[in-house]
């Protein structure tokens, strides 16, 4: 079947199997490998991307269900060559180690800040509690998101 959707601002059309998962569509058909696959059961959240401005776990969404939708992945966080404050925050606060959960975490973080620009620690922890990180013990992820909240229009990378 044919699916058409907008991915990071560009319209894409591909011939796919009806059973194809969205995570495999963006990774294998579009080459956007920043979205990861980690569990198959919607538990780990490494596959989180946005569908119509809402975070979804793309391992349990069919590519067909994204037909006509607006998809945004981690590759779409950086705009016009400017990093999203969330991306900068993760670097500033050592919010990542192996980097595997990071794209999904950042997509959820961006969504949180769009809806709650000044979240407290508890609100941040609740927002990311459907996603697993095995490296950081979460503390620096929380700090990274707080950093982004405190630097809402950051453009410069200080690395």
């Amino acid at each position, binding site marked *: 079947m044919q699916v058409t959707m907008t991915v990071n601002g560009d319209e894409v059309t591909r011939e796919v*199997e009806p*059973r194809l998962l969205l995570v*495999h569509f963006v990774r*294998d058909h579009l*080459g956007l*490998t*920043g*979205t*990861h*696959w*980690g*569990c*198959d*059961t919607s*538990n*780990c959240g*490494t596959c989180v991307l946005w569908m119509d401005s809402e975070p979804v776990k793309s391992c349990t969404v069919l590519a067909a269900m994204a037909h006509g939708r607006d998809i945004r*992945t*981690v*590759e779409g*966080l*950086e705009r016009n060559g400017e*990093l999203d404050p969330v*991306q*900068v925050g*993760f*670097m*500033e606060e*050592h919010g*990542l*180690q*192996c*980097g*595997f959960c*990071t794209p999904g975490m*950042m997509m959820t973080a961006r969504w949180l800040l769009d809806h709650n620009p000044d979240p407290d620690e508890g609100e941040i*922890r*609740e927002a*990311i*509690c459907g996603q*697993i*990180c*095995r*490296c*950081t*013990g*979460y*503390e*620096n*992820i*929380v700090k990274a998101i707080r950093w982004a909240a405190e*630097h*809402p*229009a*950051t*453009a*410069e*990378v*200080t*690395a």
Partner: protein
Amino acid sequence: MTTVEEAPANPIGFGRMKRKEDPRFIRGKGNYVDDMQLPGMLHGAVLRSTYAHARIRSIDTSAAEAHPKVKAVITGALLETLGLAWIPSLSHDVIAVLATDKVRYQGQEVAFVVAEDHYSARDALELIEVDYEPLPAMIDAKAALDAGAPIIRDDIEGKTDNHIFDWEAGDRASTEAVFASADVVVEQDMLYPRVHPAPMETCGSVAYMDKVTGKLTIWCTTQAPHAHRTLYALVAGLPEHKIRIVSPDIGGGFGNKVGIYPGYVLSVVGSIVTGKPVKWMEDRSENLMSTSFARDYHMHGEICSTRDGKITGLRVKVLADHGAFNNTAQPTKFPAGFFHIFTGSYDLQAAHCEVTGVYSNKAPGGVAYACSFRVTEAAYLVERMVDCLADELGMDPAELRMKNLLKPEQFPYTCHTGWVYDSGDYPRALQKAMDIAGYADLRKEQVEKRARGELMGIGISFFTETVGAGPRKHMDILGLGMADGAEVRVHPTGKAVVRLSVQTQGQGHETTFAQIVAEELGISPDDIDVVHGDTDNTPFGLGTYGSRSTPVSGAAVAVASRRVRDKARLIAGAMLEASPDDLEWEKGRWFVKGDPAQSKTIQEIALASHGPLELPEGVEGHLDASCVYDPPNLTYPFGAYICVVDVDPGTGQVKVRRFIAVDDCGPRINPMIVEGQIHGGLADGVGMALMEVIAFDEEGNCLGGSFMDYLLPTSIECPKWELGETVTPSPHHPLGVKGVGESATVGSPAAVVNAVLDAIGVRHADMPLTPAQVWRTMQGSPFRTDLAIQ
């Protein structure tokens, strides 16, 4: 529009700096194995056993082979013709790549399909018919040695039981004497249940055998690329120079990615058979059910003391469940890893341990999950036993520990099972943790809460780690000595590259190792490239696990850098027309003693070393050096942890309210990275203590085979970590540093368990302390967590 404050310049050496590897990860531009796409690449999938123990009568692959997108179906019978059905394990055993005679655990590899795409490969698995004759499954380690138990390893000639090894350490007679004369003896059975490292990225590989050049390239999720290459050469008879292992970005390892899995070998066979690159990437259930588990230690501990709480002896008997194949990844001479460091941090008179390894119908493995070769089990054992003794004596567990900790003046300290602890100041670390926690106030609060019927617990653990294997004369894996190489080269323009044998899985090697070179040579870490994870481009070494990268490779890099510095001195002498003996080093330059204006920077020296300058006799051009570092001893990081929990008396639900961790790993190269390592390990401890277990039912079905069943801590279960540090350098490490990667995983589980048991006033219950287990324990009937709930 707000702007980012001007960031301080990166330190030329040690200190906090942001990671050099992060810019690619935060853009989604990491390069993991599953991101690999090669022209013509095919996809493999593994058919796995549904039974824990069964004889294979026949395998019919004809329908799978007829699938239009299937390119090859590989079975054990084919592998037998190649001599690859069985390969050596890492512990003097063998493992089956594909089962030929029997399956010995649920999830064991039975057949491999190579197809045009991943979905088709999975489809074809369902077309393979395997006729199994089910056999009784041996799941209970305690019953595995019973007469009449089903024999799991009948492939081993003459094998009539499930026994693997007996091993002991310490002195039995002196320990018996100490126990015989002790005022107080406490004994306790305890299980460190089977858990799984579960890195977010599962294991996988892409193999390509180029038939023209004869070169086999394997992109693989491996923590030890060089060891893998040599083992492939030894096992498959492939010439080692024609094998290249590339370990790209790794999505977490924690020990899960040390060994060679059948899937890796199958991707190689698949490529040889089809002539195309073959990718194999396991799914989460395959990862949890078949790859290296951790722990599964059934322990019986005994501790003895004087009436006033001077600990005198410790002994333990362990039944170690190693699964269907003995495939623990650890130094050859240590069948129980470094478990015999179980005397921990205490000054006692005698100790003895006995470990018996048994086979079971469970997945093989055993040393994984940031355990420092089973120091995790050892630290848990002693820290639980000390709490049991405190309970018996009616002493505060902090007071009991303080009374028995080794004193600073006892270092270097040779413990009763033979380890030589390099350095430590234990009471200072414990006192610091108690100060941060406000220990006395916490105890006061606990009394008040108890009076109101609220359950609050305070748990302490103190751990001593032993990390950084070798020395090579004592430690090897399959004959490969545990020493690691490093090469440092300064380019003509003064930028540098350092090549490592170890491989990061998130630990930040690209930053930390650049900082070591920076510290030694005065070159900015921004100007230093770290190359690792590619056997064609890096020196040989055993890889990253057991917290050994900084203790071993960090030392190799420091020594190589110093050799570069020494060479630079000779060249600087020629440049300045001064005797090298008259030169003095200041970070980044050599200058004439007493005349600091007369100097040459490392950059100037680098350029001169490549130029027409007449070099002193015996000095070759260019500016580089290498080192193979054979550590004279392990390093012994330590720490004091305090956990505060609240337990819901109605449900048994545990809330970790606070966690204080004071770690001493010597000087910290990059404190930010070290703290991150500790954070992650603390989360592991909370997970293992409260949530994680791979249990089995009586038929051998794995009950922890997905993230719906194998529960990992999230941001909700983890508290805000409260860290502290003391700094006791290692006397033998060139930088004084000790390893840290596993410290928190080793030290934290006992603190959490001690806190929960303190809250509910019970001497012992086994992990994980789920609400059900806590509730049952409060009712007086804790259950065995390794079996299906009774």
